[in-house]
Structure formats: structure tokens, C-alpha cells
């Protein structure tokens, strides 16, 4: 094990729907592997099969089935299994031994909405207005698996609808169906992806050549500070030199304005740069946003477990090759 690294993690912010962290002392390949796994290989639940019993709405069966598939389905583990993802609670349906489906590999949702039944119960001013069927109308048979109607309480308070809209209904229309959710990964279909955003940025390394900067006049220094649209530089009041602002790593977008402009400030063309902004090769700023199916920090933990299992499996396979 001579080539093992010991990466560091620094959490910047955690919210249920978002996590930001800095991963350092590792390689782009590790960062990219994590990103790819979070997008495509974290197991989640999504509606995969739909049985229609009645559909007289304006949307056809396939269209509604597709819309149902895209609704985020949240698995909330019972208190005793906190921190687990749905991998522990469900089997992939292809691996399950049951004949067609069973509670071990699927969750059933019932939806039965009829305009004429709901209409009389509505408020006076809403009578006969189009009725929106939403994810709120999906009735689950497993209390720990429910549709994620909204990302947060704030979003719910601002929303016009009760949940994720599925279809709108007029008088006389009816929709009755049974939807079966299964566990899967986004390698099969993007509806199983737990993330809306999973990206990393390179940490900017800002080096200031003090010797070169000393040859500039105060006006030229100010010019260099002002030319950068990201505002990542400032004049150091104590030394009169240029320094990077404290949160330069957040602001930097690697614009090339400084790079091009400083050539015009140089006495000779071959002089060293005053300021250089480079990508760090071993430090990454991650942003992960959840769709609502899992908390963002659980997505990260789950992706690491997926990677661990994958590596163990491959290590075993390679070990088998040695014996041959």
C-alpha cells in the first residue's frame, strides 16, 4: 500500500437539500468518480410500472406514466435504521426471488381521483375550476416510502399546488391507477438520479509575484485590481502590494482578463506575470443538490458506499485472476 492517499474533507454548508464541501489532498480522478457515482449510481426509488384502471383525462396513459416516473420518491428509513439508504431496505427487482413483485422489491401507490367526486367538496369560488391531480393523491402501501412533494417548507408555502402536478381534470373526468415503485440507479434511467446538481470546481491558486508587483506604480496596481471582473484582488493597505481577497476561492471564475491585461503593464514582453491564477490539482469545491429523494449529505455517504462495494467486488475479481 505504498501509494495510498489520505484525503481531507471540509464541510462548508449542509442543508437537507444541499451540501457544499471541499475535498482536498486527492486527485481529479477521485473527485470525478464521486461526481459520476452521485449522478448515476446511487440507488433510489422511482415509479417504474403503472397499471391504468381508468383514464379519461386529456393526457394519454403513456404520458401520465412518464410523469409519474419523474416524481421523486423519498425513502425515509425508520428510526432504528437511520442513515441507511434504500439499498438496505429493498432488493433490486431483478435479483428478487418473487414471482412478479413483492414488498421486498417494490412499493405500490394507488391513485383514484374523479372530478365529480371531489368537486362538491371544494370551496365555492373553486367550483367547476380545473382540478389538479398531484403527487399528494398517491396513496402508498409502505409508510417509509412517500413522494417528495416539495424540497422544503419554504417551497411548499410559496407553491400554488398541493404537490408535484400530474394532470389537470375537467368535469366528468376520472383517473384511477396503480403505480409500482422500484429501486434502481440512473444508469438505467435518469429518473433514479438523486441529484439535481452534482458538480465540483477547482480550487484557485493565486500566486502574486511580489518582486514584479513592486515595479508597478500605485495607479497601475489599482488598474490591475479593477480589471478583474471577479474582484478577486485588492491592494494591501499595509505593504502597498496586491493581495488576493479572502473569499477569492468563491469568486474566481478563471476569467482571462488579468492574464491579458497584465501583458500591457509589463516593461518587457518576456517579464514574469504579476499575478497568476491556476487550477489546483488536488483541491475541489463540491456542490451537491438533491432532488428531494434523499438528504444531500446522505447522497454523498451513499455514493462512497457504492464506490467501496464496487472496489471490493473488483478487487475480488482481480484476485481470482491471479490464481489462474
Amino acid at each position, binding site marked *: 500500500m505504498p*501509494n495510498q492517499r489520505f484525503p481531507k*474533507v471540509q464541510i462548508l454548508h*449542509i442543508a437537507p437539500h444541499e451540501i457544499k464541501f471541499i475535498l482536498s489532498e486527492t486527485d481529479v480522478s477521485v473527485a470525478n468518480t464521486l461526481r459520476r457515482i452521485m449522478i448515476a449510481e446511487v440507488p433510489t426509488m422511482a415509479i417504474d410500472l403503472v397499471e391504468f384502471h381508468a383514464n379519461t383525462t386529456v393526457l394519454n396513459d403513456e404520458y401520465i406514466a412518464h410523469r409519474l416516473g419523474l416524481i421523486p420518491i423519498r425513502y425515509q428509513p425508520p428510526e432504528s435504521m437511520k442513515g441507511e439508504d434504500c439499498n438496505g431496505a429493498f432488493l433490486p427487482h*431483478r435479483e428478487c426471488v418473487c414471482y412478479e413483485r413483492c414488498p421486498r422489491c417494490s412499493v405500490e401507490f394507488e391513485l383514484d381521483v374523479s372530478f365529480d367526486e371531489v368537486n362538491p367538496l371544494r370551496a365555492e369560488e373553486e367550483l367547476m375550476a380545473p382540478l389538479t391531480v398531484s403527487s399528494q393523491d398517491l396513496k402508498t402501501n409502505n409508510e417509509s416510502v412517500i413522494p417528495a412533494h416539495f424540497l422544503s417548507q419554504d417551497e411548499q408555502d410559496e407553491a400554488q399546488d398541493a404537490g408535484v402536478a400530474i394532470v389537470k381534470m375537467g368535469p366528468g373526468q376520472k383517473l384511477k391507477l396503480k403505480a409500482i415503485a422500484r429501486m434502481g440507479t440512473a444508469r438505467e434511467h435518469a429518473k433514479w438520479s438523486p441529484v439535481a446538481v452534482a458538480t465540483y470546481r477547482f480550487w484557485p491558486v493565486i500566486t502574486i509575484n511580489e518582486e514584479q508587483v513592486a515595479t508597478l506604480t500605485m495607479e497601475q496596481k489599482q488598474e490591475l485590481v479593477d480589471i478583474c471582473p471577479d474582484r478577486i484582488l485588492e491592494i494591501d493597505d499595509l505593504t502597498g502590494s496586491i493581495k488576493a481577497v479572502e473569499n477569492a476561492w468563491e469568486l474566481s471564475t478563471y476569467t482571462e482578463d488579468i492574464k491579458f491585461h497584465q501583458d500591457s503593464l509589463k516593461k518587457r514582453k518576456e517579464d514574469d506575470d504579476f499575478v497568476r491564477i491556476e487550477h489546483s490539482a488536488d483541491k475541489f469545491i463540491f456542490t451537491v443538490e438533491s432532488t428531494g429523494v434523499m438528504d444531500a449529505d446522505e447522497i454523498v455517504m451513499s455514493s462512497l458506499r457504492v464506490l467501496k462495494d464496487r*472496489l471490493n467486488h473488483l*478487487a475480488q475479481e482481480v484476485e481470482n485472476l491471479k490464481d489462474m
Partner: protein
Amino acid sequence: MNAPERSSAFLLDEDSGEQKCVYTADTKVTNAGTFRLNKEDHTVGNLFRMQLLRDPNVRFAGYYCPHPLVHFINLKIQTNNSTVAPVEVLGSAIEDLANETDHLITQFQESIETWKRENDTEMTSQF
């Protein structure tokens, strides 16, 4: 009609005897060979390549995915001398990466717990 199974992208075709990992030694170059990793993609391909290149025993390591519609990668490795086989360097590269992942898991658990304690927010979702 002739669409491949959705699962063919990530499940081994056991009916046709597909193996996860197949090694073919190079016929012309010594200490070299190709690993065909079935149902794998750039996620582990690039990870293994970069880790192998950090090993001083490795002279060459590269991978390619021949076509976006086929679900395997070829990982080519050549070692420096005949005392270490490509299988061995790949084995130790995977072991290093597994240990690194273990380290990352503990790092994340600790820093997430610390962050939640310091920021004292009830992180359970409202739903």
C-alpha cells in the same frame, strides 16, 4: 424491437457466461496485458488509470471505452520489470483506492457530525 435490454448497461449477461474481468496477456510486449472490465465505464476506468500511474512499477497504464453503446472498458497495463505482473499492480491499485475510500467515509462521517453539532440545526427534513 431490437433495442437492447435496459439492464444490459450494468448487469453482467450471465446466460452467455460473461465475466466481470478478463485478462489477456500481450503477445509481443513482455509484462504487459489488457484487462477487459465488463459493465464498467469512465467512473472506474479513469480512477484506476490515475492510481496505476502513481505506482513506480508501472510503465504504462491507459484505458478506453471502445464505443458509447458497448458497456465495457479495456485497461492496458505494462509494468517496469518481469518481477511484477500487471495483475499484481492492478490488485494493489484497487486495494489503495479501497483504503482511500474507507478513509473518506470516516472523514465524511466525522466532518458531517461535527458540522451539524456546531451549527446546532435539526437537519431532519420536514417531510
